[in-house]
């Protein structure tokens, strides 16, 4: 939604800017923020689509308990966006179903063929 740069209690935000990627597009955030925070600030609400009903999901519990916010982060599926601190250049992707582990695993298996 937006970054609260001036807060009546927390004061002014002074963290350094950084850029991460969401489905290939660069989005701006700040050091010390989680992936979930940065994406929400940039208007992203859907972090994944579920396996069975293909429904969108986003942030729910915010403290790593519910796993609604899992995404593919730097290639690793099922990563909780609410618990992952952003790093410059981090790649985040919308996860579909159980994520690309399926493909990743096949690749691993096929490599040996």
């Amino acid at each position, binding site marked *: *939604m*937006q*970054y*609260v*740069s001036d*807060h*009546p*209690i*927390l004061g002014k*935000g002074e963290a350094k800017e950084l850029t991460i990627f969401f489905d290939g597009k660069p989005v701006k955030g*700040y050091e*010390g*923020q*989680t992936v*979930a*925070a*940065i994406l*929400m*600030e940039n208007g992203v*609400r*859907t*972090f994944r689509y*579920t396996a069975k009903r293909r*429904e*969108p*999901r*986003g*942030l*729910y*519990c*915010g*403290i*790593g*308990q*519910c796993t*609604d916010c899992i995404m593919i982060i730097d290639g690793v599926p099922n990563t909780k966006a*609410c618990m992952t*601190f952003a790093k410059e250049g981090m790649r985040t992707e919308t996860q579909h179903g159980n994520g690309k582990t399926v493909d990743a695993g096949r690749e691993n298996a096929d490599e040996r063929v």
Partner: protein
Amino acid sequence: MKEYDAIVIGGGPAGLGAAIEVAKAGGHPVLIDENARPGGQLFKQIHKFFGSREHYAGTRGFAIGEKLLQEAEDEKVEVQLNTRVWGIFPDHIVTAVSGKEAVCFRGKTIILAAGASENSLSFPGCTLPGVMMAGAAQTMMNLYRTLPGKEILMIGSGNVGLIVAYQLMQAGAHVKMLIDAAAETNGYEVHAAKIKRAGVPIRLGHTIVRAEGNGRVESAVICKVDAAFHPVPGTEEKIDVDTVCVAVGLSPRVELSALAGCRFTWAGALGGQVPVHTSGMETTVPGIYVAGDGAGTEEASTALDQGRMAGVSAAHRCGLLSDLREAEEHRKIQERLDMLRSGQFGEKRKSAEQAVWKAAGE
């Protein structure tokens, strides 16, 4: 394997209080927390706390957190961050994962201070992005300065609902309405008054019917409920919001106490199922203690003192404190806890807590 005097799991106020007391008694505790820094939910609390001087009255939550961290550092408490406990095995062995590494701890005692989790609520549309726990909204704005939404419907008039609604406004959101199925607000009047003054309508006797929207919350439908909490037909009302915050209570996190084999009892005023414990916070498993919201959901100040109580008990078990010293420390802490458990809500928690002690045979 190195043996600690106490393995303290959870670095919120309860865990910090416990570890500090064990260290103060000359013991060697390890404080384990899954987050990047300890403090638990304290750093999300930007409001001023009530209570007495010992409870840092008038100080904001995050500032209390800073003080406790300083105290823990002064007492040389060993802290293991980014470390998530996944199991408890016989002989007080605690297994955890730190990054991608397996780590294990053995302790003379274990103090469980895992906190609480927010209760979920199910309604049509409850999985739409934009429906979130109030705590999630609070984490977003107070830890990361991210406004989780612009037009908010808050469900729940307990302290969490009231406080987070107010904080959402402080951060610049528009809280359109706060609803609760109950006929009266559940939280402190001070908090309710603040958001009423800010012009937020509080609709009691109302519930959410559904959240609507295409791929994200675009509106919510609410309606009146009767005395039995059943929806009253024809009272549906649609409000345009982009975010629905759910604040319908907290439950103690009991996974670890259950795995440790602790016996449970029901204490509605303390969030439901709680591990049976003595006034000294020992569970039904000797050498395993609980403190804070994980022992029964109360308040941060209570958690801190319960932690100190458990720390004193654990130090005594390790032979670091005499019987007399333990009794004396317990008495002092208990006095403070009694003070915290006064007033309309406090009394209820007090009698619930006493029933828990009774279940432990006190």
